[in-house]
């Protein structure tokens, strides 16, 4: 990402917050709705102060009822508003599944284009924060199979701004995933002024030519760190940050695999049926003869979620050391 002349260093919370703020400021059709987004300013303080500035009718503390948060937002979107709905923690999106999969994703299709549903759904996901069974899950694989829905999961502040702007501008529903461990952990330059990053474009965050590593979310940061360690040992690893999960960027992945001939996919979500499955399948279909080694997926174990106790969390999460090891093995293969 080229950094504009003017830019500010901020963390991921600030990137989300300032982008939402601009959307509220510049487009009066924008409304934010969710639990505790008003006076509380969201449980991570992302919307703090918005209520005072934009008023109760645009910053809406909803009843505790996720299906209606999304369902009402759909109606708003169909009638010309630009709702940004928040699900307080990713797991609480389950009760809204019908509204997202059965309704939002099908509004345009079932009305043959007569109605659109420009809706953004933001939610914090992911582990490593002692969030226990309930406040640490990943949800992307439950939705990435759904035609009509877009899913983004950026994890750098500048990407967050560009993709959140793109999501807000998008005429179709976008699920915007924010890894909560990156919220205050990750800082970076964010260009000033309005810009968008197209949904569906990955980015090489660390170039290399002996192995392609595809990841997203928190693990991109660890993968880059691991790649740097390997670079010090003369092993050149390319780290691709997917950023968008649906649509996904075949071009960038295939170009990289054609160069490195090896593919490692790393994600926090459970392995079986996870996003890595589709990536592996696509490459096994479309670049099979480019591969010099079996595709490998390094993913979350197939258990419901990490536990609250530190050892259970550690057993679930993949350390940078384990990532580096897997990369080393593959480079040497």
């Amino acid at each position, binding site marked *: 990402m080229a950094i504009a002349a003017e830019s500010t260093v901020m963390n991921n919370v600030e990137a989300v917050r300032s982008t939402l703020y601009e959307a509220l400021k510049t487009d009066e059709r924008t409304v934010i709705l969710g639990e505790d987004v008003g006076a509380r300013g969201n449980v991570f303080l992302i919307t703090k102060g918005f209520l005072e500035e934009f008023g109760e009718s645009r910053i809406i503390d909803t009843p505790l009822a996720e*299906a*209606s948060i*999304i369902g009402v937002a759909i109606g708003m979107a169909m009638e010309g508003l630009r709702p940004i709905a928040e699900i307080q923690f990713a797991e609480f999106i389950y009760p809204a599944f019908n509204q997202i999969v059965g309704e939002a994703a099908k509004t345009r299709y079932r009305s043959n284009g007569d109605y659109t549903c420009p809706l953004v759904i933001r939610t914090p996901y992911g582990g490593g924060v002692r969030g226990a069974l309930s406040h640490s899950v990943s949800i992307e694989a439950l939705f990435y199979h759904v035609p009509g829905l877009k899913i983004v999961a950026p994890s750098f502040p500048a990407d967050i701004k560009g993709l959140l702007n793109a999501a807000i501008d998008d005429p179709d529903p976008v699920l915007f995933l924010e890894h909560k461990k990156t919220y205050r952990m990750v800082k970076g330059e964010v260009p000033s002024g309005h810009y968008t990053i197209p949904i569906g474009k990955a980015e090489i965050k660390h170039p290399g030519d002996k192995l392609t590593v595809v990841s997203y979310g928190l693990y991109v940061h660890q993968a880059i760190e691991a790649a740097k360690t390997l670079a010090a040992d003369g092993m050149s690893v390319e780290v691709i940050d997917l950023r968008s999960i649906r649509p996904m960027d075949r071009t960038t992945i295939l170009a990289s695999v054609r160069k490195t001939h090896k593919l490692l996919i790393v994600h926090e979500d459970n392995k079986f049926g996870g996003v890595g499955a589709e990536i592996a399948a696509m490459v096994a279909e479309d670049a099979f003869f480019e591969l010099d080694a079996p595709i490998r997926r390094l993913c979350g174990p197939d258990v419901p979620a990490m536990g609250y106790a530190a050892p259970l969390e550690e057993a679930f999460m993949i350390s940078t050391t384990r990532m580096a090891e897997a990369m080393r093995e593959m480079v040497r293969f």
Partner: protein
Amino acid sequence: MAKAITKPAFERHGLKDDQLSWMMRNMLLQRMLDNRGFQLNRQGKIPFATGSEGHEGIHAGAALAFERGRDILVPYYRDIGLCLGVGMDPIHALLSMFARGDDVSGGRQFPNHYSHHSLGILSISSIIAAHCPHAVGAAYAMKLRGEAGRAVLCTFGDGSTSSGEWHEAVNFAAVHRLPIVFLCENNEWAISTPRSKQMACERIIDKAPGYGLPGVRVDGSDPIATYAVVKEALDRARTGGGPTLVEAMCYRFLSHTTDDDDRTYRTRDEIESHRHQDPVPIFEKLLIEHAVMTSDEISQMKKDILALVNDLTDRAEALPFPAGSDLDKHVVEGAYEPWQ
């Protein structure tokens, strides 16, 4: 139009003769389109049809209370008469039955799943009660923009009120005192499930106080009474008075759909015992008795409608199916591939 010199007093809620005969026409048209659907299905011309026989009074009355160009209708699959009544061209009923390319869903949805943005008819879902929160969102948009004088009319069946999404929608609307009317078309059945297995309260309006809302019950076989109640509720909504839950009583005279066989769960006697609630003959009789229309005029109206429905049937049938290549249109804006 026949004008009676001395008209016996009947509660017409300020409705003029042409409005009454407009309702008559709406009801007859709906019934004939319904019958046409079942007929075409029996003839093997269409695989599936849904009928709303018994709901005509509700539809005619509510449609008259609706303000075209201002209000928004968020209907369900029974609302053929209501959609016609707020301005939908009846060709759409046939296009949807025949699944033609010109159908509003492009031949994608089952019959009677309308959407007409330009008429303010929101897109109908097959998933029961899923549309109720959408109606609330539309009402929220009206309120946020300060559009006084507009309201949303959201309809659903009695069974739908068991759904969690219905509860969440009504509750949300009530908290924000949104300009919306929730109109329950209580036909006593949800497929084969009677009220007593659906809820433990006697009436749908017993649910209103739990949302802090007024509830009004009306005889849905009477389009005039339905008009009056829905109009009052819409007016309250339009003037900042918040939502109302209206329960309009009717009876589902046909099987749930052509795929259903109601003989498995209700007797013919039960159905016959409800004939007195059939809105069409009641209203015909009323208009004749009160000299709003003559019996001849009604007969002529029926003939005209039948001719229209025949003509629409031919026109719709003659139109092409959507092309197989239309399958991937309108998934999202523009072309769409998950891998880019």
